[in-house]
């Protein structure tokens, strides 16, 4: 067993410096690396580029980094649940690159899997395709999209062990597995760090080889963005 465990978020983020490109898992506020974000706020790292499907809300998730003007650029598929985001985008402080959600996932996966680029039909004939190489396969047009290059990938899992093996819960999985091993250093934070040997190898979603550092996170808030319920009849 190769031990990837670090004691806390502070140690897990060692080497993170201004101007770096980061991947962050999560969909909305679901499955976001809350501890890593909190540590980034504390260490006041600046001018970062964030590859993340969304940009949090005003006072949670990546919104916390936006409030402190720590983000230079966002690469996302859907943003704007966030007033401060809108203000910074319109004032030109924040650069935003919007890309299709499946393309975002696949550019992460390509980086993880060692593909320099992939062809996708998503966005062909739209402004997303502008300036990009296109090619026809079997009568259909595709766009060439390159793999992301990132310094750190921050993911959140439900359970993990010191070997870096991860299991995700429900839809908190989302982009997290695709970002593992897609950056130079992958940092996984888990709700529960269990003893090595206690996870069933058949049930592991991400093998530890894709993870460089793992720690047990603290105080997960797991905020619900849109609480929808039905009435008992």
């Amino acid at each position: 067993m190769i031990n990837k465990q670090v004691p806390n978020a502070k140690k897990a983020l060692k080497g993170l410096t201004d101007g770096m490109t980061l991947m962050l898992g999560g969909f909305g506020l679901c499955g976001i690396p809350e501890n890593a974000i909190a540590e980034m706020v504390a260490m006041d790292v600046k001018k970062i580029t964030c590859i993340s499907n969304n940009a949090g809300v005003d006072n949670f998730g990546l919104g916390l980094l936006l409030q402190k003007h720590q983000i230079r650029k966002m690469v996302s598929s859907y943003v704007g649940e966030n007033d401060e985001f809108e203000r910074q985008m319109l004032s030109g402080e924040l650069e935003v690159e919007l890309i299709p959600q499946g393309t975002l996932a696949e550019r992460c996966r390509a980086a993880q899997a060692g593909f320099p680029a992939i062809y996708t039909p998503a966005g062909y004939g739209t402004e997303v395709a502008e300036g990009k190489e296109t090619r026809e396969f079997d009568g259909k047009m595709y766009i060439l999209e390159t793999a992301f290059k990132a310094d750190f990938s921050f993911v959140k899992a439900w359970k993990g062990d010191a070997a870096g093996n991860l299991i995700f819960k429900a839809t908190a999985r989302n982009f997290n597995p695709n970002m593992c091993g897609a950056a130079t250093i992958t940092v996984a934070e888990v709700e529960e760090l269990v003893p090595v040997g206690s996870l069933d190898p058949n049930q592991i979603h991400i093998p530890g080889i894709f993870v460089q550092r793992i720690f047990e996170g603290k105080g997960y808030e797991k905020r619900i963005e849109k609480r929808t319920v039905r009435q008992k009849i």
Partner: protein
Amino acid sequence: MLDKIGIAKRIAKEVKNGYYVNLGIGIPTLVANYVCKDIEVEFQSENGVLGMGPFPFEGEEDADLINAGKQTITTLEGASFFDSATSFSMIRGKHVQLTILGAMEVSHNGDIANWKIPGYMVKGMGGAMDLVASAENIIVAMMHTNKKGESKLLKSCSLPLTGVGCVKRVVTNLAVLEVSIDGFKLLERAPGVTVETIQNATEGHLIVDGEVPEMDI
């Protein structure tokens, strides 16, 4: 003329036994409520769930279980969870049989615009571009005209496109239309709506072939 629920009810009839279906936000979400109970259908949400169920009862919400609209949901028996790349493999790989989504504009050659209005805050395309670029069967659910009374079924879209030549069918408050090589083919009229009304509300080329039946909802 139909209301939003009427549109959802009519689209629900397009959902067939054995279909995996992706529902967009808005009117499409309502479709799940009106699908025939006698058929086997699974709803996919692109954030990573197949076999999506209704909203949870109060107190049973799970922050880790949401749909693509970020609403809390439940799952049904036989459900599964997966990562985003796998989710879009289902979509791009044509394993999802039907995609239902809303639109701001559709052109008579099947182009769709539903993600950006220049001059307004742009929130992004989310999964819409992946869905429209790949799905074999795309039904657009929308009102026939915008709030100013202008047609949303056009010769060519004025807004930035989400996808080209991809829409197969449009269900509006006035009609069911098929996108054909020659234009919008009028298939059905909403109850009480005349062909003339539909013609006047359609800027794109409308093909009226013989007697057009009224929808059966």
